[in-house]
Every structure is written in C-alpha cells, then in structure tokens.
C-alpha cells in the first residue's frame, strides 16, 4: 500500500462502511476489510483494475465517479475516499458534494498545484510544469482540474464543509512542518490529505 493510503487507512474507524472512489488495484479496501473489519467497496473506471480486484475477492464496481455517485442514497457510507483523483474528474465540485451526501465523512487527497517547484518551473521556463507528482505533459494529462491547497480550503468554505483534519504528504512521508499552516502547505506540500464533513445544519 502507498504511504498516503496508510495515512488514509489510519484515519478510518474500524467496522465502518467505506466507499473508495478510484480504488485502483483495491489495496486500500482490501486492507480496510482485512485489518479493520470494514465493509469496504470500491469504484473504479479502469476495467482491468476492476477485474483484477474482483478476482481477488474485493467488491468493486466498474463505473465513472462523475456519473454513478448520484445513484447512491444519502448516508450510505461512513467514509467516502477519493485518492489523487479529484483533479481528474469532470466535475470536482459535484463529486465532492455527492461524497458528503452519500457519506458522513469524506477523505480526499490531491496533488497541490501551488507547490513551489511547480511555480518556479512555470516562472523560469514559461512551460507547463512536469514533476514526479505531475508526470504527464499537458496534452495527455488526465488531470484536467488541478488545484492548490488554498483553492481546496476555499471550496470547502464556500460549499460548507468542515475540515476536521488535514495533512501534507511529501514523497513517502508526512510533512509536519508544511502541515503547520495552510500557507506553508500551499508552498511546500506536494499532496494534501483532507478529512471533511458537512457543517452542521447543511444538507
């Protein structure tokens, strides 16, 4: 399991109902069902990955988050997880809204486009930045909605989501320093990981 997945897994309470959107090879839901007795399901767009996961005994459904999230009834899950996918969906705002409609809590990780290396690259070369976190050229990147950690905080504020917990992941470690403040995080964080819930009174 990737390091950021370990962080996510650590934030999930045992025996929870979990939906992992874009579950890939299913390692997170496998881990959650084995180690935490969760009722964990996955949603994945890549059919090969779906077949692989189901063949390993994991409950995974083929489907597009932009389309199928609308089908789940309110409050179906305790946690809805979206790992490194927010920037790649058609309508990130709707996806978030559905996540917090069908789940009590949302766990969202995404690469931070405000990182200093990306800013420097753009400033210095005038070309779209490419780094290990943003590895594809602009013309074939699936990441059609890049955002910064500032942007994400702002969207949460605007749409009425409370940030219960957040952290910064740099490479294979959690950066406590960059996690001290959103300002540091926005400059020095490669990835943000957020635990959200609806502010009380908001539907």
């Amino acid at each position, binding site marked *: 399991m990737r390091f950021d997945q370990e962080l996510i897994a650590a934030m999930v309470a045992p025996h929870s109902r979990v939906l992992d959107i874009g579950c890939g090879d299913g390692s997170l839901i496998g881990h959650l069902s084995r180690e935490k007795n969760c009722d964990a399901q996955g949603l994945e767009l890549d059919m090969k990955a779906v077949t692989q996961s*189901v063949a390993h005994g994991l*409950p995974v*459904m083929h489907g597009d988050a932009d389309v199928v999230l609308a089908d789940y009834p309110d409050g179906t899950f305790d946690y809805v997880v979206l790992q490194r996918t927010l920037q790649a969906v058609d309508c990130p705002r709707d996806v978030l809204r559905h996540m917090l409609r069908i789940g009590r809590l949302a766990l969202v990780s995404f690469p931070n486009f405000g990182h200093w290396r990306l800013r420097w690259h753009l400033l210095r070369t005038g070309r779209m930045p490419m780094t290990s976190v943003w590895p594809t050229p602009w013309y074939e990147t699936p990441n059609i909605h890049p955002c910064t950690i500032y942007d994400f905080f702002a969207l949460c504020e605007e749409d009425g989501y409370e940030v219960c917990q957040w952290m910064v992941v740099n490479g294979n470690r959690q950066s406590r320093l960059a996690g001290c403040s959103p300002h540091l995080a926005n400059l020095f964080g490669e990835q943000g990981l957020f635990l959200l819930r609806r502010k009380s009174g908001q539907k």
Partner: protein
Amino acid sequence: MLEVQSITFPEGMTLQCGEKIAPLDIAYQTYGELSPTRDNAIVICHAFTGDQYVASPHPVTGKPGWWSRMVGPGLPIDTDRFFVICANVLGGCMGTTGPTTVRAGTERPWGKDFPPITMHDIVAAQVKLVDHFGIDRLFAVIGGSMGGMQTLTWATDYPDRVFAAMPIATSPFQSAQNIAFNEVSRQAIYGDPDWHEGDYQAHGVIPARGLAVARMVGHITYLSEEALTRKFGREIRPGTMPAPHDPLAALPFGGMFQVESYLRYQGSNFTRRFDAHSYLSISRAMDFFDLGSEHGGSLSEAFRGVKTRFCVVSFSSDWLFPTSRSRTLVRAITQAGGHVSFVEIDSDRGHDAFLLEEPDFDRTVRGFLNGMARQAGLAEGDHHHAL
C-alpha cells in the same frame, strides 16, 4: 457415475396464475457435499434451453455438462468446497414437471394445456428443493442469461435466503428485441405442419422443423458477428451442393455455407433433446420477466432492503443481453443502497461467452466466491487453487 436425481412433492405447487400443479417433480443434480451447518450451498440456475447436467454428461447427447469447465473440484465453482445444486426448471423437459409430464388423473402429457409459468414459479419450485435439503440460507445463487433472471428473482423474492448472487449476461427485464426473437421462434413452431394446433403428441410426431428453426434463431443471437465471421466466414462446406429444392442449385457457385451447415446441425440436434411445448412455455416465462414493473415501475424498489451481495457480470460483445442492461441493474441495486460489484468481461464471442473459456471471467467467479465465503465466515475449503 451418472444417477438421475429427482424428487416428487405430492402436494405440488400453486402457480402465479392461480392454477395448481400436483404432484410436482423436480429433477436435479448435486455436486460436492453439504457442510454440517448447511452453509455452503450454491444454486446454479440454468439458461433457457439448459438443464440440470451442469457438470455431468448429458444423458441424451452424451456431451459434457454445459458448465463442466466452471463447476468441479478445484474449478472456480469449487465442489471441494461448495455444495452445488442445479435443478431442471419448471416447464422443462429433463425430468422436472413440464408439458411432457403425464398429467395426474389422465394418461396424457400436459402438452398445450400446461399452465403458463413465470420466473417466480420457476424459482418457487427450486425453493421447495432447497427446503427439502434443509437449507435456510444459500451461500450463493449463480446463473447466466435466463439463469440470471432466476438469480435476480431468488434474491428479490427470498432476500434473506441468498447471501451472494451472481447474475451473469442477463437483464432485469426481457427487452423488446429479445421478445421479438422469441416470437420468431414461436411462429416457426406454430407454422410447422406437424404442430397440429399443439396436439402433436397425440399424432405421434414433433414439430421438428419449427423447433429446429427456433433453435437456429437462438444460435444467431448467442454469437457476435465477429465470432460468426471467425468461426465460419464465407466458407463453403467442401463437397456440398445446395439443397435440391434450392432454385440456385443449377448455378455453378452452389454449395452450402459453413454457417448454414452449422445452424442446421444445431437445429436438428436440438430437437432430439428439447420439447416444443417446453420451449414455448419457458420462452413465455422469460418474455414476461420484468422486475421493475412488478414493483410499481421502479426497478430499484425491487432491491429495497435486499442484503444480498451481488456480482453482476456482462460481456462486451453480448448484444442479446448487452452491458447496458447490466448497468441498469447495477444502478438499481446502487439506488436501493445495495451491495454490488460489476465487471464487464472483454470478449468478442457474444452472449455465449459465459459458457466458454474466458480466463478473466473464471477469475471473477472464483474471486467473488472466495471473497464472499470469507465474509460469510465459511470454513476454509481446498484453497490451493485460489487466485
């Protein structure tokens, strides 16, 4: 090794149409052993023209069981671990009560008087068999095509008795296109001179030509265009001439296409093992299958409160039960807050793919059952084949 397994329920059953059939015979096959706690049973539902010989040779044709590559020791549906039951459907002609069964109080088979049956009746008959084994909850129900319709009926009519369900290459309702194909098949039977208004048995004949044509139509729908092309192309069968009544017989480019020959062979073979009334009766049951309409027009209502864990499987080139139908089904289960996995297997072999060698499909079946067995807390079986 083959023994005919059959049980008679003298009290019979009342059908959805209100008519009563008594006694009720159910012919079935079982494989593997029922665990002491009776928690490892899997019901396999056969397709339209299938039968209970899922993993044993067919008594009429001598061919291997129709899913013998899937069901057996160490196979994806592992009989070292699971107790598999497959019953001939109500209305069938391989031993379960149907139009060929002699009607009680008479000396003649039911024939055209066999009452109309539904998917619910077909499953209700299987419930009697499962009760007979003393099984409260089935570990799983699995079926492809019409077997998938039965699987869905099991899960929605008896939700507490089905832990996991695999509806394969199927649909929550029979589509207009499929009804249309069935109607062509039925008309072929009605149009046969040996049909005798349905009284062919009294005349000592069978409407073999009509039944064969019905089967030929079926076979076309089971295959994809790609599969037909690959199998036969435009090849002419060596040494053949057009049939003598064919007006083209005199032309120099005569001969029988391989695909024609294949269909004729399939058609005539079929008449040896299947009854025309059974064909009509079961095709009607399929045509009237529509889970949504029975729940106020809302398919998701059918799955409300159903705790069964589903694994829906479709095949990319299946145009008889296309992936879009499976998506409709998956969507309804999701909307009802149900638990569903969904895989589309990439195959160019059409609807028939679920009966053929498709490694991804095998892995899916094995993986889903193993995962579900873990969740159901089933005793570890012979696990060395897993994954």
